[in-house]
Structures are given as C-alpha cells and as structure tokens.
C-alpha cells in the first residue's frame, strides 16, 4: 500500500515531523488539530481506459475552508476533483476505485445516485459555461430541476439570494432577463457560481476558475471565494501558486498521478518537505 518513492524520500527525514501514509506526506500538526473531515479518500485510483491517471490517493479534505490542488499540467488535479462529484462517471472509459467517504458515507457505494450527489457537491469549471438562457433562468435551473421552490416568489428569492452570495446581484439586478452569455467573463464565472449555490450544495469544486479572467476579475473572484469558505467546503484547482497561497488554508501537491504532499498552505509554501514540491513552488518544474 505504501508508495515506494514516498518511502524512499522519507528516509533520512525525522519521523516525528512527517509520516508516510499511502504515498502522501501528512503534516502531523494538521492531523493533531483533529479537524472534521468532509471527505475521506483512501486509495483512490482513476483509470482512463487502460491508463492509470491517479495512483492511489489518500487525503482528508477538511470540512471548513479552502483546499487547493496544485501541480504540473497533466498530474491529475482535474481528475481528482471530479472524483468528489462523480463527474468522472460521465466520461466514457473513466473508472474510479478506492473509497471516498463524504460525511462518513461512501459516495461510490451501490445505490448512491450521482445525480443527487451532484446537488450536494457543486462544480465550477475552467471556462465559464452559462447556459444560453437568461441570467435568471441560469440560476433558477438547478432549483427547478430539484423542485426546491414551491412558488414563483420562492424561486425569485433563491435567485436573488444566490446572486447576492456570488457578489453579482448589484451588477445584474436590472437585467435578469438578459442572456447570461452576454456578461463579461468574470461576471459569467460568478453567475456560474450563483447557479451552483442555488441548489444549496455543501461543497463547491472549482477547476481553475480564474484561468480565463483578467487580474481584476480574478481578484474579485478570490474575494468571493474567501467569503464563501465560511459556509461551504471549497476545493479549488489552480495553476497559480500565488492564488493557492492567497485563497487556501490547505494545499495538496500532485505529481504524475501521485499526491506528493498535503498540509497547511503556509507550511507547504514556506517549508515543503518533498523535493518535488519545493522544485515546483520555486518554479524549477512544471
């Protein structure tokens, strides 16, 4: 079970500081804090056809705050993110094994409906993807299909509340009937976040949500993420070290399908324990 390379790397390191668990170096200080875990992943492997993209990941995602997934392109960050809402199920040929517990219940167990899971675990994509409908209808879509609103008034309230939480309300309140695709990139991304919030998820997954945005829109998005983390468990994939450092409390570094290091963001960035992590955050690889 224990990954060879991780073991080798741990040799010569003080075991009081770090312990190897299934290939990942877990920060003991973090483990001691005994945070409640939202997700408990053990031995998570993902195959695309015959190719293994994730080689057994063990990770506890804390209930509160933002967890950042970083690592070089193609290391499996998006793949791992899609494990949490079973979006890999929609990719032909993709297979997930290992166990993923959400609040103690296996989300890959027989009888778990991925459709219901996805209502609890929202997702925001790299490229903003509003539906070709009005701003209002974009946000109302989720509540409609899940029957969350009994009346038009309730739906209006959900739409307004979600747009407010996504810090978009002030900009769009006078043009809710206009198409969502007509907004700027940054607004579209916040619209998509509002759309996800409208189904009252517990978790929001974000896959490089700022990569299509300019610096100002990015700053607004980061502010929003900082605001949202009070109420949602957020897992974010990012290519920007600075962004990971700014928005996240926990950081996980992936390399070639392995979780190399996972711990407090501050610790990862100031005192990485693995050479590969260090090389990556100092810009020598990736």
């Amino acid at each position, binding site marked *: 079970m224990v990954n060879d390379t991780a073991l080798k790397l741990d040799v010569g390191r003080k075991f009081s500081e770090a312990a190897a668990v299934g290939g990942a170096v877990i920060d003991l200080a973090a483990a001691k804090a005994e945070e409640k875990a939202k997700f408990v992943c053990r031995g998570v492997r993902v195959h695309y056809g015959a190719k293994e993209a994730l080689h057994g990941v063990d990770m506890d995602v804390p209930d509160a705050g933002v967890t950042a997934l970083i690592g070089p392109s193609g290391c499996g960050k998006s793949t791992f993110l899609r494990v949490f*809402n079973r*979006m890999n199920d*929609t990719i032909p040929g993709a297979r997930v094994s290992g166990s993923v517990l959400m609040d103690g219940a296996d989300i890959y167990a027989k009888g778990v409906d991925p*459709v*219901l*899971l*996805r*209502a609890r675990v*929202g*997702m925001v*994509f790299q*490229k903003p*993807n*509003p*539906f*070709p*409908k009005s701003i209002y209808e974009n946000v109302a*879509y*989720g509540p409609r*299909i*899940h029957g969350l609103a009994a009346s038009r008034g309730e739906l209006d309230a959900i739409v307004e509340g979600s747009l407010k939480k996504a810090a978009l309300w002030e900009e769009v309140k006078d043009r809710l009937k206009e198409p969502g*695709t007509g907004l700027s990139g940054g607004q579209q991304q916040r619209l*998509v976040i509002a*759309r*996800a919030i409208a*189904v009252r998820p517990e978790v929001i997954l974000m896959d490089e949500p700022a990569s299509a945005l300019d610096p100002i829109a990015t700053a607004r998005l980061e502010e929003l993420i900082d605001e949202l983390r009070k109420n949602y468990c957020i897992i974010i994939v990012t290519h920007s070290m600075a962004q990971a450092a700014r928005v996240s409390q926990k950081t996980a570094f992936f390399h070639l399908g392995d979780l190399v290091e996972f711990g407090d963001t501050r610790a990862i960035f100031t005192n990485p324990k693995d050479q590969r992590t260090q090389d990556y955050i100092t810009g020598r690889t990736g």
Partner: protein
Amino acid sequence: MTTLGIFLSLIFESLRFFAQVPPLDFLTGLQWSPQTAMREDQAGQSGAFGAVPVFLGTLMITGVAMLVALPIGLMIAFYLAEYAPARMRAAVKPAVELLAGVPTVVYGYFALLTVGPAIRGFAEAMGFAVPTQSAVAAGAVMGIMIIPFISSLSDDVINAVPQSLRDGAYALGATKSETLLRVVFPAALPGIVGAFLLGVSRAIGETMIVVMAAGRAANLSANPFEAMTTVTVQIVAVLTGDQEFDSPKTLSAFTLGITLFVVTLILNVIALIVVRSYRDRYE
C-alpha cells in the same frame, strides 16, 4: 449569375402573364382550371387562374410532410447524438442518410401503390370513402424522404452544442434527460429551426411524389384525405402538352415558378441566418 438569369426570365414571363390575367385574380381566385373553364368576359382566353387552391395544396402537403419528418427526424437525431453507442451511430447514420438518395420516383410509387391504398383501406374499414390519391399519402411519403434532412442536420447541430454546457448541467445534478430537454435542446433550437426550414423548402419544391400520389386536381379543401395539387405539379401540368407559348396557361407556369422561387429563397435565407447566428453564439 445563373440565378439572376433564371430570375429575370421568370419575371419577364410573369409580367406577360399578368398583362393577361389580373394579379388579384391570380392571388385570391379560388378556382384553378387552366385547361377547361372559359371566362365569359375574356373571349378566346381559356382557364381560370385563381392560385389559392394550388397554394393551399402545397401548404397542406408540406404540413403533413413536416408533421411526419420533424418528430421522427428529431428523435433519430437525439438518439444518435446523445444515446447511441459509437457503433450503433456508425451504422444508423448512413442508413438514414440513404433515404435522401432514393429517387423521388421511387417514393412516388411507394406512395401510390403502398401508402395510398393502405390509407384508403384503413379509411374504408372505418367507414369513410377516401381516394387513393390524397394529400396525406403524398405528404407522409414526402415526410419520410425529408427525415434524413432533419435528422442529419439536427444531429450535427446537437453535436455542436459544447460539452461544457452538458457538464454544467450534470454538475448541477441534472439527469441525462433533464440535460437534453432543458439545456441541449434549447441551445440547439436555432439550428434545429434552420434544419426545419430547409426541410420545408425541400418539401415545397418536391414534384414527383405529388404528381403520383396526390393528383392533379386543384381541389379547394381543408380535408387532407382529398386529392390535391401543388405549385410544382401545376407547373409541370400546364407545360406538358401542346400549347402556344404565350397563352396565359403556359405563362401561368412561370408565375407559379417565381412564387415558388421567392418563397423558397426567403425560407433558405431565414434558415441560413438562423444557423449562422447560432454558430456565432459559440465561437
């Protein structure tokens, strides 16, 4: 250039026609019988040129055809685009497209010898008398011919809906059918409308099936089980046989032609605009 040439010659002949028959008679007249009826006020001129029954026949048969082609074509498109496994798709798509390659004479025979009698037999069993040649028979068979136009174009359009939209819907906890009906279909709708309009203009221009299966009698009727005729059929009908070239009968063919030309041109232009604006939306 060619288009312009055709158009100009049509206009020229039409003007000669309208010199002999008042345009209002043509557009609003309820009787179309270029061969037989004599108009008392215009001695020596033969025929009545009220085109309404001809237009209505076209409308009726096109309507029946689209009623058949649209739902079936769309169902095939959705199945192919969203549900069919790759191997099934590879087999079904060419098979459907083959329908478009069948000569229309063959469809005409099919309508006349199979569908028409079947409809008549069914109607007789229900206690109605219905002719073998009817708008329904011609329309239904024409619909079958148009299915591949609808299904193939719609399939392309549905495939062009970005995967990111489907992912967005799935990520909200939408089921496959919710995603299809409420995200993919609306997103593809402009393209589907375009496919529909192209199908309509194809139906309007179709001649052979109607000649064989719907008849030549210009009946003014709202009953689709009656024999009916269309613009294209009448063009053929008035031009066949020995006629002086500048008799109103012959000239009426050009006038019908130009009407047809203008209507299908408009339909095609609308279809193109709709499809193009749809493409722009995603690029």
